[in-house]
């Protein structure tokens, strides 16, 4: 685990765009969470948010390198330890404003069963920042211990 410019420790991982590769990513997230003794239920929330980020990239990004680049970072802010996950694809990007918000009503009326990934990420993590453009999409998610 290396130190970044802010003194946070980080691990990089690159996974291919392929079925079930999100499991490889979650194993790394769990290991880093355990390293800072994050409670198991919080680690589960990070893992599911990461799964959703990976699935979105696999299904929609059309990454030019067929890869997903991940950084797992642990650090401290105002005496609070955190686990941060950065998910980067070199795909086509997307317009966040054009993403239709899901709702239980739409889901159960049969109109939109999918499309919950971003909502789940935002609900399970403490902060989620998304930047997207022609160069790809970067999702930065943080969970405090």
């Amino acid at each position: 685990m290396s130190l970044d410019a802010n003194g946070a420790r980080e691990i990089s991982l690159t996974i291919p765009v392929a079925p079930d590769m999100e499991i490889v990513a979650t194993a790394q997230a769990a290991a880093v969470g355990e390293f800072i003794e994050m409670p198991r239920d919080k680690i589960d929330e990070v893992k599911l948010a990461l799964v959703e980020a990976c699935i979105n990239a696999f299904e929609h990004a059309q990454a030019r390198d067929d890869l997903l680049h991940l950084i797992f970072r642990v650090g401290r802010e105002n005496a609070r330890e955190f686990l941060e996950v950065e998910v980067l694809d070199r795909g086509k990007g997307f317009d966040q404003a054009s993403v239709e918000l899901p709702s239980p009503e739409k889901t159960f009326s049969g109109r939109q069963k999918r499309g919950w990934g971003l909502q789940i990420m935002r609900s399970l993590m403490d902060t989620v920042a998304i930047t997207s453009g022609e160069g790809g999409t970067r999702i930065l998610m943080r969970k405090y211990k």
Partner: protein
Amino acid sequence: MSEVCRVAAERRGNVAILSTDGYINNQGGEEIARQAYAQLESGASALVLNLEKTRIVNSIGISILIEVLEKVMDRKGQLAFCGLTPTIDKTFRIMGLAQYAAIYPTEAEAIRAVATA
């Protein structure tokens, strides 16, 4: 966490209990649906899904569980979940599953509820 979701079925009268072990993604969800529909076809009117050995259900898996729930509701049957981790419970509530299906802490409570409904 296993990459393959195993699903075990047990029948108690008109109640079918499906117990999962592992990650519920699209394949896991489809296996649950396959077994659930087989139970409904063979006369079960209530389903209990016990997820106590599952720690992650992704949104694709949940969308398939919603299809199972809709089919049960179409048949005027009952579906209940039990053994959910706090993360799965939270996700089910985010996606609205908890509005349409009951959630119980234990399998015994879930069976009792759907058997007497």
